[in-house]
């Protein structure tokens, strides 16, 4: 986590869920895409981190 800005995952997810509209699976693809495009620097070295989604949803879930 960034000490002032929070974690990349939660900050990206909340930004996408507030500002984008569509089925949750597509919103999460956007979250994964944004995180995959981001490099995290840890101990001076670049790292990658991306979310993992496991779903047993039977229908589209649309929040807004």
């Amino acid at each position, binding site marked *: *986590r*960034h*000490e*002032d*800005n*929070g*974690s*990349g*995952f*939660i*900050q990206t*997810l*909340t*930004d996408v*869920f*507030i500002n984008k509209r569509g089925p*949750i699976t597509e919103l*999460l693809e956007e979250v994964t895409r944004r995180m995959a495009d981001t*490099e*995290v620097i*840890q101990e001076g*070295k*670049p*790292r*990658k*981190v*991306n*979310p*993992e*989604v*496991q*779903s*047993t*949803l*039977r*229908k*589209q*879930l*649309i*929040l*807004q």
Partner: protein
Amino acid sequence: LESEMSNPQPLEEEKYDMSGSRLSLTLCVTKARKGSEEDMDALKRMFHHLKFESTMKSNPTAEQFLEELDKFQQTIDDWEEPVSCAFVVLMAHGEEGLLEGEDEKMVRLEDLFEVLNNKNCKALRGKPKVYIIQACRGEHRDLGEEMGGDQVAMIRKNHPQTIPTYTDTMHIYSTVEGHLSY
């Protein structure tokens, strides 16, 4: 069948009914997790924007993770109006399948997921349940790889008459199995 094979049909786009109440529970260990308050603020804004009845609790012990989930299940089952959807956000240090409470004891994620499944939470039976987990799932560090080709797999399911215990749930982890979460 032959004509279907040569002329694929678009999938039916059935949607969950979201006209009822939406409830969320956020449990976050902020102790020794700098920046986690900012995550809670962001989630608070998101749940307000998406019209969720949001409950947040900081620094639960391992046992309190389970107690708060049990309370949430009871609240949902006692809710006067129909409930359409529930979100649970869990944020703490962790290992694969485990979360660390404020007391540094571990709680099994599976035990937390059990509480709201179709067997244990009647009001959410067949309704979407979304878990968001911000925690490490191991010690591995991903250095990244060069871009390669994509693989796509499609599975088509039947529509059963009865509802399985473990449907309508989505688990969203901050990182893949075995890896650190930054």
